[in-house]
């Protein structure tokens, strides 16, 4: 059996006395595209941030290519992170830099590439997400939400990472632009042969970009399986979620006392 690209073993994380992750176990095989679904506050973002090293789990271990990464030093972390690409929910483009420099950022800063050469690659990546070269000279604030997402995607794939993370890639976009982004994600991940881990609550997006789906509920993975099996999961929480029903075992905690 091959080493999983990403492996989470019994990961716990809480803030104050609020438990967010309550023993998450998860494996993502090389080349697989896994989507984690779950309601707001179910711990999806925290899971992602723990893998990226932006948060440190309270207990448990996370492995990337078999290497444990919880508690490693800054230099090791940078080496691991160089395998990663990340598309943030709000794109998180650097608004002090023009679009092309945003895309080329990982190449110039991370890989110390020459600026002219990095710009050439940046424009190639922009073309790959359907943006013309002159968009490269604009500033992030001048772009629409959908275009910012595309630039964010171009930035995530610019360093040709082995693993790409997508945080709610379609949230805040109209359905057509959402589907365009989904198509681009599928295309980019396939072309790079990368492993993808996404979090979303948009089922249309989840079905399109994944080959496996895991559902996170109350800090635990309650179901994981192939995308085409999700309709016959036999798990009432999953059924309620994918059909978007207000009634069911998942009770939204509207008010905590």
């Amino acid at each position: 059996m091959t080493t999983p690209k990403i492996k989470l073993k019994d990961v716990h994380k809480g803030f104050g006395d609020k438990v967010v992750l309550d023993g998450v176990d998860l494996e993502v095989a090389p080349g697989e595209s896994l989507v984690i679904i779950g309601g707001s506050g179910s711990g999806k973002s925290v899971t992602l941030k723990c893998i990226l090293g932006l948060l440190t789990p309270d207990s448990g271990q996370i492995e990337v290519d078999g290497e444990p990464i919880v508690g490693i030093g800054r230099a090791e972390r940078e080496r691991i992170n160089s395998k990663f690409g990340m598309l943030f929910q709000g794109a998180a483009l650097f608004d002090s830099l023009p679009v092309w420099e945003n895309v080329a950022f990982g190449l110039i800063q991370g890989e110390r590439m020459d600026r002219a050469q990095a710009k050439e690659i940046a424009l190639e990546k922009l073309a790959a997400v359907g943006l013309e070269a002159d968009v490269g000279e604009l500033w992030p604030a001048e772009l629409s939400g959908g275009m910012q997402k595309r630039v964010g995607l171009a930035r995530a794939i610019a360093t040709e990472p082995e693993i790409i993370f997508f945080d709610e890639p379609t949230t805040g976009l109209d359905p057509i632009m959402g589907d365009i982004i989904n198509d681009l994600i599928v295309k980019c991940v396939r072309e790079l042969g990368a492993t993808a881990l996404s979090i979303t609550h948009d089922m249309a997006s989840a079905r399109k970009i994944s080959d496996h789906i895991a559902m996170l509920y109350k800090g635990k993975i309650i179901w994981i399986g192939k995308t085409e099996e999700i309709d016959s999961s036999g798990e009432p929480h999953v059924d309620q979620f994918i059909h978007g029903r207000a009634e069911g075992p998942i009770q939204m905690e509207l008010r905590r006392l």
Partner: protein
Amino acid sequence: MNPFQPVGKAVLGFLEATGKLALFTFMAVSHCVRPPFYYRLLLRQMIDIGYYSLPVVGMTTLFAGMALGLQTYAGFSRFSAEDAIAKVVALGITRELGPVLAGLMVAGRIGAAMAAELGTMRVTEQIDALDTLSTNPFKYLIAPRIIAGLTMLPLLVFVGDIIGIFGGYIVSVYKLGFNPGVYISQTFKVLEFIDVFSGLVKAGVFGFIVTLMGCYNGYNSQGGAQGVGAATTNAVVSASILILIFNYVITELFLTA
């Protein structure tokens, strides 16, 4: 409820904040002295702090010097010591008013801008994005700002000293009818190296304080627009208070030394 509980909570909160700031300061300083350095970003910050603050600092010290000249005349003419004006202005500006006023003005201009910029970067996940692109935010964002503050404020204050003394000269010569040559020669006669030097040491410390508080509050801001607003206020208020406290401490050190 236990009446000591709020007291204990306040003490613990204060200790926690102090520890956090101390840790942040240590991290910031250690990244200021270790490569890689981002010269392009450092240059941009130096221009922003040094060059673009010049009009504000120049105006402040000019009018402070003029007012100081008038006030000294109002006071010292009561016991016929008018010829001390040049000396009082020169010492007052270089030792005290130049660095303090420049520090406070830069706290308002630069400290606030830094807190707002880094705070916005924090809440829009741009700082997280830096991390995922294998770029250390302490090196990329914080070190250039602190080095620029530390080096540029003494230069600003040196120019401010000259303008402030010139302010006193204008009032004395054109309003109070002093002899220009005597005024200038008295200024140079009274000024010693330590007067200017102690003012420049203050300026360096204030530059460090302003940029550190701006970066600390911005980097740790949370909770959207309101959080960024609070970070900006905290940056300016804490920098201003620390400037006045350290001003006293440094003055005392130079007097006893």
